């Protein structure tokens, strides 16, 4: 077993995210242990693992929704420190999609999408709306743009959340179990949008248990357990010939049904 990062086939070698010797504690609990990970521009990485393994915490560290105690995270050349300016800069580079969508219920879908461009990028409202329309069309809910989030189905809300993140024109997109809160018939519409995004060359780090989707889209699979990276592999090798026993056990449990 090794935590060395094998170079992903086909992706460019320029790393956009570099995580080295990352350690994080929640109080006394050692939640992330010696994480080393480098993600290349345009690479798609899928992280899976049992609940409580630290996979969500790891990606939440990348845009500083969680702080860390040891180690270094560098996003597009900007080190994540306590420096609020760096944090703001990094967050502009990164879009995030949450399990619970986290759309703003008091704003329309269009307003949800223009909020970042207008207030963070200081874009004129009209330009922001044009961008928002573009991305809402891309996730196929342009016709819902005047509605409030509460009026949309779960799948539509999650697609709106993806559009909202894209409106900031990020270089990296983080997905934290984007389909876990969805009814089964809505999962596909969200995965289709994500597949389209992957094909367009977006750098993506995805925490997900959708293994069919992962095998299609991922350049690299990462398996985490107990706050550490247990296995890094190509999707083919990961699903057909996993190296670690822990991975084998996990896959046998989730692929059984």
């Amino acid at each position, binding site marked *: 077993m090794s935590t060395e990062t094998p170079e992903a086939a086909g992706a460019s070698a320029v790393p956009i995210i570099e995580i080295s010797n990352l350690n994080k504690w929640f109080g006394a609990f050692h939640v992330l242990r010696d994480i080393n990970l480098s993600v290349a521009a345009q690479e798609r990485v899928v992280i899976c693992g049992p609940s409580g393994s630290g996979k969500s915490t790891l990606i939440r560290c990348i*845009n500083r*929704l969680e702080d860390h105690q040891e180690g270094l995270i560098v996003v597009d050349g900007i080190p994540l420190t306590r420096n609020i300016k760096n944090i703001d800069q990094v*967050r*502009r580079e990164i879009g995030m999609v*949450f399990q*619970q969508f*986290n759309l*703003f219920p008091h704003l329309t879908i269009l307003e949800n999408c223009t909020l970042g461009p207008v207030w963070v990028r200081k874009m004129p409202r009209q330009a922001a709306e044009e961008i928002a329309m573009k991305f809402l069309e891309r996730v196929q809910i342009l016709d819902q743009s005047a509605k*409030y989030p509460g009026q949309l189905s779960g799948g539509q809300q999650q697609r709106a959340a993806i559009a909202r993140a894209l409106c900031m024109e990020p270089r990296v997109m983080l997905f934290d179990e984007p389909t876990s809160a969805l009814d089964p018939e809505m999962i596909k519409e969200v995965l289709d949008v994500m597949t389209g995004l992957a094909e367009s060359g977006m750098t993506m780090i995805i925490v997900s248990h959708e293994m069919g989707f992962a095998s299609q889209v991922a350049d690299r699979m990462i398996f985490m357990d107990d706050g550490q990276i247990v296995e890094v592999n190509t999707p083919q090798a990961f699903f057909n010939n996993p190296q670690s026993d822990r991975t084998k056990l996990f896959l046998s449990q989730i692929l059984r049904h």
Partner: protein
Amino acid sequence: MFFRDQSEMLPARAAPITEVGIVGWLRINLFSSYPNSALTLVSLTLLLLVVPPFIDWVLIKAQFSGDTGEACSGIGACWAWVDQRLGQFFYGFYPAEAHWRVNVTAVLLVPAILYVLVDNLPGAKFGRWFSYVYPLLAAYLLVGGFGLEVISSDKFGGFMLNMIVGLTGIVLSLPIGVLLALGRQSRLPVIRLFSIAFIEAVRGVPLITLLFVAIVLLQLFLPPEVSLDQLLRVIIMVTLFASAYMAEVVRGGLQAIPKGQIEGAQAVGLGYWQTMRLIVLPQALRISIPGIVNTFIGLFKDTTLVIIIGLFDLLGHARLLQTNPDWIGDVDHEAYLFSAAVFFLVCFLMSRYSVSLEKQLSKDRH
């Protein structure tokens, strides 16, 4: 086997009389069950016992003219004092030749409030601006200076005093309360501790005590050359008192906002103040509307406590009337009833606005 031919299809019939119209309404709302019917009958009886005699006393048998309590019959209410005293009830001892200044201030208050409370009024842009300038304009009109005769604040009184203290308190306590509520949740210990200390200290003391502090004690701590106007001190204390309550009401709203909202805002790149202003507060304040208006109403009624420190508000003038030799013993009920009615009207309006605002907001979003 059953079969119904197209020509035999049943037409819709009118609903039975027990379901629609007046009978339907009565049955559904007043006589839906035995206990409900019993309550309806008891309520009707009580209303019949109370309302007609009350109207009889207040209006029908009432006395409307006369110069002293001698004129009062004793059978019905005596409103003879209104002619002489209504001015004092509303203006206090504000000079009669300057009453127009209070009137103008009161009339201008209507658009100033409406442009804040109601969306989509014509000329909203100018109106909003007017609302912001109004407090300065009102202060200028009421106090004077710059060409207007200066009228010292100890002449202020009557309902005008309640309105000045109440409205200033309402307008200032909300933003201060919001800041205190945010401060109480701050990650910076200094700000958090200050907010908690302020809220607990002010909330833990009766308003009357604070008013005494404002009048008697404050001067001990201030340098002798600084002399704060008495009315200003009262306004400051009432505002601080209401702010502490407001902070706790708003904190309740803040705590109801899921953490994911803040994370969503952070992920989009918004800073702390942007997140609060654009995402958290609009939702938190909406939830808090009933509590906020409740605090406003409480504050407004608390303005009557200024009587303790020798200021005569509406209630104060009601008591003055009762102790006046011309009227003593004759108009006790009437004076209180009148004051109560005026306060009720204002508080009821606030309450109705709060209800309509809640309805409108819930309609907008769903």
